[in-house]
């Protein structure tokens, strides 16, 4: 991951947000943080574009999933890692619906997992959702 890789991380748990952001920075990325789904959208609009979005699901104001669905609707097809501690089986189907460049990471995950999933998504960086032409 080079310093040019721009990653947006969103989680309402500040400690975890800082930790994931720090981990990605140490892996060499340029990281912007958001504390809610609404802030995720704001940051995408003001600080974008990003090469990768890493987001939690359960967040106030707007869940990570709602935020990413909105992002996809407006035609942004960047890769996304959805982090979750929810045991809900429906989550994986919802993540699949975000496209082939979306991956699910179940909390707690290891640094290696985060690194390999991020590297995999960044290497095959092709938007798989239909963009409005």
């Amino acid at each position, binding site marked *: 991951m080079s310093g040019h890789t721009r990653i947006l991380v969103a989680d309402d*748990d500040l*400690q*975890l947000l800082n*930790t*994931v952001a*720090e*981990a990605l920075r*140490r892996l060499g990325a340029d990281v912007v943080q958001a504390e809610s789904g609404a802030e995720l959208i704001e940051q995408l609009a003001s600080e974008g574009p990003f090469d990768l979005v890493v987001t939690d699901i*359960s967040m106030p104001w707007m869940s990570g999933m709602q935020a990413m669905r909105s992002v996809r609707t407006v035609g942004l097809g960047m890769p996304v890692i959805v*982090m979750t*501690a*929810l*045991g*809900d*089986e*429906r989550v994986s189907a919802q993540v699949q619906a975000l496209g082939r460049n979306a991956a699910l990471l179940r*909390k*707690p*995950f*290891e*640094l*290696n997992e*985060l690194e390999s999933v991020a590297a995999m998504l960044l290497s095959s960086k092709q938007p798989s959702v239909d963009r409005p032409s």
Partner: protein
Amino acid sequence: MLGFFPLGITAVVQWALGPLIYPHVWFLFYPSLLISSWTMDRRSGLIATALSTGLIWWLFVPPEHAFVKDPQELFAAGVFFSTGTVIIVFNDRLRKTTERLLKVIEERRVFAALIDNSPDFIGITDRDGQSGYVTPSGRRMVGLAADHPAENTTIPDCYPAGATMIVQVVSTLKELEHLREEWASVVAHDLQQPISVIVLRSDLLLHEGLTETQTEDVREVRSAAKRLSRMVNDLMDASLLETSRMRITLDRLDLGQLVRAVVERDPDAAARTDVRTPIDSRLFVKGDEQRLEQVVTNLLSNALKYGAPETQIGLDVRDAGGYAEVLVTNRGPGIPGDELPFLFERYFRSRAARTSGTKGSGLGLYIAKGLVEAHGGRIWAESTPAETTTFHFTVPLDGPPMPTPVLSSSPDEGALQPEFEGIQP
């Protein structure tokens, strides 16, 4: 002693009246004996009767103050004594019956209060099934005024005569149950957040060029956090199973392939496990891939933990008529017969597990059982102490076993290829 009082008073009155009452010396004593008997038990009553007979005989039957009287008087004395005895015995019996009756009435009052204060509909139909007793809350439930006579409530026609019906309002219970479920998943979710921080920060620390001791320390912290996470997941699964919220997504799965994948994922397991699947056929089951992998992983890790060190673990997949059966066999001390029936109970940990120092929540097999049963299968264990222990589980087959494509050299994805049509069963 109070019982002797009316008799004494009668004696005084009769003495005062003197000749007025003569010769009916016994008569006044009948009512006084009747009054006395109310306060006396059988024994004192009989003593009182005998005493009064003697007193009247001595004081009032002429000639007075002498024991020897006209033999005719003996008849009157005999009648008085026997009538007295009968009065005493009957009154005693009457008093006891009354006491019992009062007790029953009191009990009935207590039960009626309990039933009437029940929040449920409790109704008892009479013999013709037309009406019966219904509790106040029951009357409210069917829209009758609370002061509607309890005994004249019409019971629905469908209800049999001479029976009791209890209808419970479960909405409060349901609400509590829902809160409990929500609480369990929120707790499980919230606990994973700090655990994630511990695991990630430990990983970051491990990249900081620590000394050997420091590295070891951080690894221990990390491993404890991972264990905590597994325990939270187990509690979450147990909660899902108990509240029937465990979602099983059934897909067509090659069970042999699934079992091999589980073994290959863990290098320790792969080195010690002999996987045996049918040579000539593939067993497809209806199952949830992730959950079946969880069951196999659990049984396999138990076999590795509790099996004798350095011994091989057997992992067999076979056709069991309509079901696919998985057997996980290890050599080792085994499980004593008295523990076998409890293995799949919540929080049960065998003596071996408790003394081995192997950590566990006691939920692994309980969850495995729940998951297998959610698939419509069965799980059980057999053990010959000091020899082998085998855990079995079954999952319904999805169609008959498929012949293995012999000529295929690539690991295929499950679906039969057209060129093998000729050897299909």
